[in-house]
Structures are given as C-alpha cells and as structure tokens.
C-alpha cells in the first residue's frame, strides 16, 4: 500500500512538472501554430537563474527570479525571432530548434556540462507520512504549484479579455483578426505565460532532481510534447489530464516492469491515443 501511495504521488509530481511545461507549449501551439522547440530552453534558463539566485536569496525569491528570467527570454524570443516568421512555419521550427541547441551550448559554456547541485530548501528536504508511506515533500510542492498554475490559467482564459482572445484564436485565428483584434499581441502574451510556467517547472525540477544540467529542459520537453499531443493540441484541461496520465504510467511502469519501460509505455500510450482519438483527449478548445 505504501509503495502504491508513494508511486502515485511521485507520478503526480512528475505529471505536475510535465503540465507546467506542456500548458505553455499547448497554448502557444493552439493559438499561434508554433511548435516551440525552444521551450526547453525557457525551462533551463529558469532553472539556472533560480540556482544562481538561491545562493543570495531565500528559495521563494530565487524562484521568482527564475520565472522572471524565463518570461523575459520567452517574450524576447517571440518578438525578435518568431514574429518575423509567422508566415513561414518551417523556418520557424528551424529557428526554435537552433535556438534550443545554441541555448544549451551557452548554458554549458557558462556553467559546465556537469550537474550543478541544487540544495533542496527546508521543508521540501523532509518527508510526510501519507497512509504509511514516507512521501518526500517536494512532490506536494510540485503538485501544489501545478494546481495553482492550472487554476490561474483557467481564470485568465475565462475571465480576461486576453483570455477570451486566446480561446477564440485557438478556434479561428483569422476570424479574430476580422473582428478588428490584433491577435499578435495575444501571441506575445501566451509566450510570456508559457515562458513563465516553463521557468517555474525548471526551478521545481531543480528541487525535485536535486541538481540541474544544461540538457534538463530538452529531456523533459520530449514528454511535454507527448502530453500536448495526448491532451489535444491547444487544450488546457486536456493537457492537465494527459500530464497526470503520462506521469502515472511512467512511474508505475518503471517500478513494476523495469527501469526504462516507463518511457516506452508513454510512447505506446501516445500511439494508442492517436489511434483511438486522433484529436487527443479533448477537442480543439483552449480551456
């Protein structure tokens, strides 16, 4: 029983991490049709900025610094590199892939390829007993952060003017423009949101893994893309469901089968979902 509880909460924690990365990817793809391969870089920059700030400031402040760094980077990337290429999707993909590779190389040049140790802050270094299982508290931090971000994003989408534009734009971007709305401003907004959430994921991944490497974003990004596809490109709720599903499948398969089977099972899950429901778990709506 305690193993089951531990596996479930760890799976949910991993799912939370995936959700933080995938939610931004999904909104960016849903609205702007951009496959953002540079998303892992936003995560990496968030993680390194948090790691850097954590030597000077308490954990909360360090995370805020990391999130700010990721947000600024994401907005800069959208304005300078993605925006001039909206009519050219292939060049856009090439730019984000190239940026991702260059960014990882820069992180490596600055801080080395070896993992940097990230000291788990106070409470997250301890465990809590849940139904007999000693669960590391960082799981709760991850799950709590993802739930908070999910709720905040739903509020944003349902209650704000920009949220309304994003939801409409995911359905029919041209029609939003035909109503006299400059939809490109909304593109920048979703990049900012995506960058912030990915950077938060970077800070939390640093806590969860206890170390950071330049390639951290890239390896998590693969699973985040799978989550986006399973969830139905562009749907936030679908993204949350898919993230939980992928996190749990990965944990359980890795434990009960063999290490590595988890990752393979996720790809299998993707194949099954695509066969049964080609549009993903939910349709093309932002919420």
């Amino acid at each position: 029983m305690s193993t089951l509880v531990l596996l479930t909460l760890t799976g949910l924690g991993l799912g939370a991490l995936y959700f933080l990365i995938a939610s931004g990817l999904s909104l960016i793809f849903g609205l702007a049709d951009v496959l953002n391969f540079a998303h892992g870089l936003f995560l990496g920059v968030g993680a390194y900025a948090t790691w850097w700030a954590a030597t000077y400031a308490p954990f909360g402040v360090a995370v805020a610094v990391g999130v700010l760094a990721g947000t600024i980077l994401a907005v800069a990337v959208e304005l300078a590199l993605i925006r001039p290429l909206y009519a050219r999707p292939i060049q856009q993909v090439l730019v984000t892939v190239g940026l991702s590779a260059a960014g990882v190389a820069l992180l490596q040049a600055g801080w080395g390829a070896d993992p940097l140790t990230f000291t788990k802050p106070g409470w997250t270094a301890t465990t809590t007993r849940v139904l007999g299982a000693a669960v590391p508290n960082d799981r709760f931090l991850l799950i709590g952060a993802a739930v908070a971000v999910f709720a905040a994003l739903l509020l944003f989408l349902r209650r704000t003017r920009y949220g309304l534009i994003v939801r409409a734009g995911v359905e029919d971007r041209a029609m939003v423009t035909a109503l006299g709305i400059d939809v490109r401003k909304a593109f920048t907004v979703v990049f900012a949101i995506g960058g912030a959430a990915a950077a938060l994921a970077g800070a939390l991944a640093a806590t969860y893994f206890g170390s950071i490497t330049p390639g951290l974003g890239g390896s998590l990004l693969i699973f985040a893309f799978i989550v986006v596809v399973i969830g139905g490109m562009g749907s936030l709720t679908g993204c949350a469901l898919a993230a939980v599903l992928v996190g749990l499948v990965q944990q359980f398969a890795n434990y009960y089968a063999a290490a590595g089977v988890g990752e393979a099972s996720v790809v299998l899950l993707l194949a099954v979902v695509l066969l049964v429901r080609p549009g993903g778990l939910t349709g093309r709506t932002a919420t």
Partner: protein
Amino acid sequence: MSDAQRSEPDSTADLLQIQDLHVRIGGSHILQGVSFAVPGSGVTALLGRNGAGKTTTLRAVLGLVPRTGTVVFDGEDVSGRRPYEIVRRGIGYAPEDRGVFGGLTVAENLRLAERDPSPRYDLVYELFPELRTRAKQAAGTLSGGQQQMVAIGRALLNDNRMLLVDEPTKGLAPKIVTEVAEVLERAAATVPILLVEQNLALVRRLTDRAVLIAEGRVAYTGTLSDDPERLQELLGVSRV
C-alpha cells in the same frame, strides 16, 4: 467583360473602391483583376456562380488572403494595412461560414467583437432577442439561424461604416431567411452593405444594384433590372 467594367459609378461618392485585385492561392489564380466600387449607402449585391470568387473578394478586401491591387476605403488606401487595422476603420464582417466561435458563449462572442466604447447591445438585442436569452449558451450548440444572428449581431454591435455580409441565408429555413432579410433591410438604412447572396429573390428585395463576378473577373456592373437576359446567362440560372 471589359465593357461592363467601364460602367462604374462616379468614384467620388464611393466608400469602397477596389482596383485590379488579384488573388493567387496554392497556384490557382482566383481573382484576376477585380475592379468595382461600392457607394456609401444602401445594399450592393455581389453575385456570381459558385466558385466565381465572391467570398475571396470579400476576404481580399479585408486582407485575409494574400492579394495584389488597390483597396481604397473612404479615400484612404488600405492595401498595405493588416486585416485588424482595416476592420478598425469601420468595417463589420459576417463571413460565409458565420465565423462563430463554437466554444465561446453567445455573450462572449459578442463581447469579443466590441470595438466601440459603447457597443450597441440595445440594437442587437432588439433585433435578435434570442441572443439575450441564450447569452450563456455555447455558440457551437446553436442552430444555423441562431449562429447567423450572432454573426450579424457582432457586425452591428459597433458603429461600422460598412458591412461585408457573405451568404447570410445559406442553409437557413425559409422563415429565418425572411427574418435575416428584414434585419439586413433595416441595417442598410443606416450603413452601406456589400452583400454576397445566392438567393436572388432576397437580393431583389434589398437592392437593384449589383456587381457580377465570373471566373475571377467582374463581368457586369449595374442594375439587376437593366439586362435580365445577360444576367441570366452569366449566373447560369433559368430565371433572374
């Protein structure tokens, strides 16, 4: 064909002028030099067979498709402007497929279209009381007629200087067609409309002024009653 093009009305009173509009999409040359003008009052019908380029013409005016040529709105050349900038000059657009956002509620669809500081909800709700009672319903679950009301309502919400309305009665029940016609008639009293419509009886009820497009070119500009036989031939219908 070029004879017809020369019979354009005096351009000084025209609110919208289109000159030599070309649209090429995916290798096919859809509009091949369309030129006509829309006066600043009443309804101008844009006619033609299926695939003639009527919808593309409206989309090209707004810049929603890549185009060359000149579009002048109210004396200003807007050819190089982006679609949202052209629309903000005061154009309301109700597209062919209605362009309603199915995942948004009726109220949200209208709210999204708000451009003016005081949108005319009183007018829209007076014309379409159902939009008020169904405010919280997802627009995707509405009937075709109700969705058309949302589409036209969005265009009427702002104080537009021109409306582009594309096949508003397509696929609607006869009773709803009459309702839509009444609304257009009323709207046309205050704002000029460029109307694409296949229902000729309805067009006749609203206007006598028409531009006819055939195979990507303007084939006729003038009145519907002028040359019924030629219209009949160009539209490929038995009775005009």
